[in-house]
């Protein structure tokens, strides 16, 4: 079985650059905690060029490089970067699993093992596949390297030998020749074992493999056998592929609390953009968003932002998010933000061959999302006349014209065409001042219809919901024509003891 290892060598650095790409060419470093005595866990290439080193203190680093930009290591960003790396792997292989975290010198790496079997049926070669995988990781903001070999351990070792953006394919049977000249540090021995091997003059993998195993194990303990197995490319652990989850999340810890919408929107735009890229890599679209804002003084603002139809249009998603924040702004300054979305497949309805072409499903999805951002959540859809005695009862269903039933047989062309009289609903019903004589309205005064009642039909009594104080209703309805020519539906509400006009015949 062929296996690949997708690896990022400095995850804290990559996670920060992914969220803040403007720092790419500047000297910056990531510290383990705030304060001048904190240790640097990662330094950028520019900072390294100026003499800043890992594991030095912040104060020392600032003394060397005066314009060094400092970021505090963010677990939220690193977790998102690890998830993005896995997403990149899953977009190229159905089986992928994060590599166990390595201690010591490789503690800052993040790696994913993925099944590379049969890739030549889709790509011209394993090299082409690996190059495309590197490009995909780059698109998600991660400078990763890829190595393909016949075992996970060899692929991982080979990937450690590469710089970000490189790829390497070891043909079957060539692993031993590749590993031989490499230093044993790449095998990641613990400190005691590494010191012992160095004392014995074992510096390369070839040196290790030429020594008798039993003698080594007797002298150095059973841990050296694991080292030898890794040097030979033997798998020591079973592969446990991670099932791809459909809920993707991006998060960020803010440098300072934000209490205005514009800077918060800027931060959220970055989160949305990264989330959208990961969903696109997995051939999914963004459905409803779940936004969690951690507030100053321990508060929390969690909300759901509805998206009418799955979409990857950043403009639409951003508009929905801004609308939600403008409508209900956070009650305190925001110190961190997390955005999560349930990925959904992009709509690919096939339209009926015998019906007129409707809107393209992908375009329709984006349009529905835009309309929802303009009109508000829950105000877009296909109407439904509810089976309810309550006046103006209606519902809204998701608009899916591709699944609409075909029209019934055409009506008899010889039958006379009757044009139906419709009503215009008044939402909310308009209050009316009504003069009543012997139980019948005689004169109406309202914002819609005024004057003497010229013609009248009714009343019709409608009641219901008697089992609940909140839901009960009782109306007497009349169809009236008033002196100003308006033909309206007038009703008396027995619960509220008031007259209203709830519809106009038009």
């Amino acid at each position, binding site marked *: 079985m062929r296996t690949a290892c997708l690896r990022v060598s400095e995850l804290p650095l990559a996670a920060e650059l992914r969220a803040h790409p403007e720092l790419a060419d500047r000297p910056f470093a990531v510290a383990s905690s705030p304060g001048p005595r904190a240790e640097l866990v990662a330094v950028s290439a520019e900072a390294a060029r100026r003499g800043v080193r890992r594991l030095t203190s912040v104060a020392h680093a600032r003394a060397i490089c005066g314009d060094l930009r400092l970021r505090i290591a963010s677990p939220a960003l690193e977790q998102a970067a690890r998830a993005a790396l896995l997403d990149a792997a899953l977009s190229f292989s159905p089986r992928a699993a994060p590599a166990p975290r390595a201690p010591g010198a490789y503690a800052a790496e993040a790696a994913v093992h993925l099944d590379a079997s049969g890739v030549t049926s889709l790509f011209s070669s394993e090299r082409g596949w690996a190059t495309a995988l590197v490009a995909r990781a780059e698109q998600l903001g991660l400078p990763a390297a890829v190595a393909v070999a016949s075992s996970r351990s060899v692929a991982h070792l080979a990937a450690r030998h590469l710089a970000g953006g490189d790829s390497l394919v070891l043909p079957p049977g060539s692993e031993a020749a590749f590993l031989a000249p490499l230093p044993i540090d790449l095998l990641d021995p613990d400190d005691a074992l590494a010191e012992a091997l160095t004392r014995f003059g074992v510096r390369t993998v070839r040196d290790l493999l030429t020594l008798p195993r039993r003698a080594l194990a007797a002298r150095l303990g059973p841990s050296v056998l694991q080292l030898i197995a890794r040097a030979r490319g033997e798998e020591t652990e079973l592969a446990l592929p991670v099932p791809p989850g459909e809920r993707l999340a991006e998060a960020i810890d803010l440098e300072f609390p934000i209490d205005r919408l514009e800077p918060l929107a800027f931060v959220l735009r970055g989160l949305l953009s990264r989330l959208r890229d990961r969903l696109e890599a997995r051939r999914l679209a963004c459905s409803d968003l779940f936004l969690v804002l951690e507030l100053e003084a321990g508060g929390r603002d969690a909300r759901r932002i509805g998206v009418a139809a799955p979409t990857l249009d950043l403009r639409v998603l951003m508009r929905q998010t801004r609308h939600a924040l403008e409508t209900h702004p956070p009650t305190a300054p925001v110190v961190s933000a997390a955005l999560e979305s349930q990925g959904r497949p992009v709509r690919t309805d096939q339209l009926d061959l015998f019906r*007129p072409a409707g809107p*393209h499903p992908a*375009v329709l999805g984006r349009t529905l999302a835009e309309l929802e951002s303009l009109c508000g959540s829950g105000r877009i859809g*296909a109407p439904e006349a509810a089976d309810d005695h309550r006046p103006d009862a209606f519902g809204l269903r998701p608009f899916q014209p591709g699944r609409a*039933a075909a029209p019934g047989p055409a009506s008899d062309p010889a039958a006379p065409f009757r*044009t139906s009289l*419709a009503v*215009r609903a008044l939402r909310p019903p308009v209050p009316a001042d009504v003069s009543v004589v012997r139980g019948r309205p005689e004169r109406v005064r309202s914002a819609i219809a005024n004057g003497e009642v010229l013609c009248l039909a009714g009343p019709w009594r409608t009641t219901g919901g008697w089992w609940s104080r909140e839901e009960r209703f009782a109306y007497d309805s009349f169809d009236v024509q008033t002196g100003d020519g308006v033909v309206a539906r007038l009703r008396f509400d027995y619960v509220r003891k008031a007259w209203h006009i709830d519809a106009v015949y*038009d």
Partner: protein
Amino acid sequence: MLRSPSDTARRLDALLRDLGPRLRRGGRPAEPLPRFPTGISDLDRLLDGGFPRGRLSEITGPLSSGRTSLALCLLAQATRAGEVVAVIDAADAFDPASAEAAGALLDRVLWARAPGWREALRSAERLLEARGFALVLLDLPPADPRASAVPAVWLRLVRAAAGTGTALIVLSAQRMAGSSAELAVELRATRAHFTGTPALLQGLEIEAALVRHSSAPIQRSTRVHLHHSAAA
């Protein structure tokens, strides 16, 4: 006998007056636009076949003039022909029960309850850009003069509709789009029929007048009877 230049000019003026709206600039005759029939034969005759596709039209009239019934009639015609339509309801007056009674297939109707006229106009533009909708009905609330005070807005919609095959119809109490409308119909109620014992509302009789047509004579009208289905 030679005519004097002033005599020729006078005859030319008279000829131009007689030709009226049938006179068109340019040498090529305009191609007939595909039409969206209402299903009401007298009205379709008045409109030269129906409302033009790919153009903006207006249906105006006060309350109880029948404009909503006419609009739902168009919805029914389109949806029963298998097409997809949209109702942008800035007035929040759309009644699904009435649409169903008129024969519309509600699965093919997209109802957008826009909170204001700005959102309604933007929604209309998005739907026109999406293409595929046979009819976009824009129901505007009454007495909002701001909507009619921005002619550029209507020009944008006209340009968005052009070439799409979508009939954009604006429903309002008074005309909004001015010369941007290809066609405008003004409705007024002539009589409400309350008959029977006990009295029931049987229907409304309305008069539809063609008040604007970019390429045909106007000031023509016809009468339509709207039947109240609950009374049937």
